[in-house]
């Protein structure tokens, strides 16, 4: 981390102090709190926070200044509070497999149009990578290292030693009250595709309905996916 910081300093011509880092940690803590609050709201009232909106909003944080992004998240939240949407009867699903290559927005809209409320997902994980705040006192780099090592979100690209693969999926499904899981992995994504058999087995053992399909970032045809997801949603609602 210190080498990285030094290299970045050389690249930008700006030496970063510990106080600079603490300030940055605090800003990203605030941002992460807002992101996670919206995720919780979506799990509770998915009709209020359509996933296509949430995804676009959170992904915008990859290119915006963190303070601007936090303000945008708060403004969105205020809009939701001011104009509540009407509840709908749709199947509640968790989507997995997209942690790295991000799905096209149309794919998410397709899943929602097919009758699925997405109440849990693994998109734009970097926005909520750390569970909770990172301490802003003491050595900021050390705090960052500890947070990454000990409080990172489970992810197919991280070696999992603490739990059996798939357990975190079941935990996520239970926490979000999802009724089923859709595995939507990008073609040729080894971590997601290698993870899938283990996650599917765990879902099956926990009696969680699941279905799977592949997509690619430039996928333009969604009719097949819509039919598959729609059938899956129907099977959940009718069971």
């Amino acid at each position, binding site marked *: 981390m210190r080498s990285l910081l030094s290299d970045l300093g050389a690249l930008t011509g700006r030496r970063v102090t510990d106080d600079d880092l603490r300030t940055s940690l605090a800003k990203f803590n605030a941002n992460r709190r807002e992101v996670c609050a919206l995720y919780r709201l979506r799990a509770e009232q998915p009709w209020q926070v359509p996933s296509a909106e949430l995804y676009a909003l959170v992904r915008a944080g990859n290119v915006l200044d963190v303070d601007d992004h936090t303000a945008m998240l708060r403004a969105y939240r205020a809009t939701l509070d001011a104009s509540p949407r009407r509840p709908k009867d749709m199947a509640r699903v968790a989507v997995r497999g997209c942690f790295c290559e991000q799905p096209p927005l149309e794919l998410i809209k397709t899943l929602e149009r097919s009758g699925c409320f997405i109440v849990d997902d693994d998109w734009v994980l970097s926005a909520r990578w750390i569970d909770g705040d990172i301490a802003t006192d003491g050595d900021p780099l050390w705090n960052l290292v500890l947070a990454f090592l000990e409080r990172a979100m489970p992810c197919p690209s991280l070696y999992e030693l603490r739990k*059996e*693969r798939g357990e975190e999926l079941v935990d996520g499904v239970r926490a979000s009250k999802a009724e089923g899981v859709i595995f939507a992995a990008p*073609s040729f994504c*080894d*971590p997601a*595709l290698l*993870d899938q058999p283990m996650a599917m087995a765990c879902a099956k053992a926990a009696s969680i309905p699941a279905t799977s399909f592949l997509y690619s970032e430039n996928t333009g045809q969604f009719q097949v996916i819509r039919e598959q997801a729609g059938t899956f949603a129907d099977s959940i609602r009718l069971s």
Partner: protein
Amino acid sequence: MSSIATSVRKDRSQEQQKALIADYYRRLGALAAAGQGAPWTFVPGNLTELLLTFDLLPVLPEINALQSGMRKTSGEQVLHAEKLGHSEDVCAYVKASIGAWHQGNVGPTGDPLPKPNLLLLSYTGCFTFLKWFELLRGETKAPTVMLHVPYQAQGGITNEMRAYVVKQLRETVIPALEKVSGKKFDIDKLREHLRLSALAEDDLVRVLEAGKHKPSPIDGYFGAVYYVGPIFTAYRGTQAAVDYYRDTWVEIEERIARGEGPITPDGPMGEQRFRLVVEGPPNWTHFREFWHMFHSEGAVAVASTYTKVGGLYDRGFRHDPDRPLESLAEYCLNCYTNLNLSSRVDLIADYVRDYHADGFVVHSIKSCDSFSAGQLLILREVEKRTGKPGAFIESDLVDPRYFSAANIKNRVESYLQMLGQKQAVGGHA
């Protein structure tokens, strides 16, 4: 083009190699028959000397997969895994290994394999290794120990990287091996295995560097996979490996003295019209057919990167009995799979120059995203640096569905014709 012979010709070292590999599987079979387990681990970053110190014999899933590929049984294993829900797009070695486990855990020679009593996950740059052992852990319920080897992202090894690996060896790996074997760690025993490793490594380097001779007495890719077999499996650090590489070097020296080329499965190689460097692992399911496409056109591989995935000994590394854990750490850090793209380009460009190659071939593996990513960039960069033309062909490791013989043959022949035309115009390619 000559046809493929119905019987296979082998030289002395290949016969010895075959006997060593057969004996390795017999010993694993005996362990399984006795109801004993064995540690499972990977070739890159293997800690064979350390395992031998505890009288443990490793099982190497990728060796099992490739041996199954050569024996035409991997296709069924891959299909079996896909029926269990594994994707068509992922590493075929992984699927062959999962399939074999579900089909009774029998090795490629028909001998049963011991169940894992430890999954020793030596992680040296191939990301799939992590997922592979997570999958096997789920299947076998065996305890897992991970040796995390930092990637050479900056193109070198720092003292901190070495110390980090040594610390893991001391605090995690050795205690786990003590527990599994019921034996205390004996560093002097380890030193003796490392001494034997270094002796074998000296002769292996002589054998592989013989490709610098004209004509080359070896095929440094297809033929050399036989040479690296024993040191890639369970023989590094043994007297058997020392003897094998000494005998092999004597055989090669004799061939150099007689001005002879390598023995191919179809007989002694004739005129060597093209000297090639090859990047990437071979296809195992059609190994002979693949080799035939080259040697029948007078193309000999003088050097390859695949023969270095078990250790870059030709770049100077040796296991060192005076620095036992440090040299094991350096071995892991120096694995070819742990090098960044820039270092891989350097290595291939050096081979093209040092082995006086006319060109180089990248054999890209369809299901190996970890290793194949960046190979087109490697191709362009090596061409730029050496001025030698490269060829790009694609098939797979052990999934027979992805070996399209007609397409590959067409591409190889076109490439070699182009080299021939360059020779005709300029005197050499």
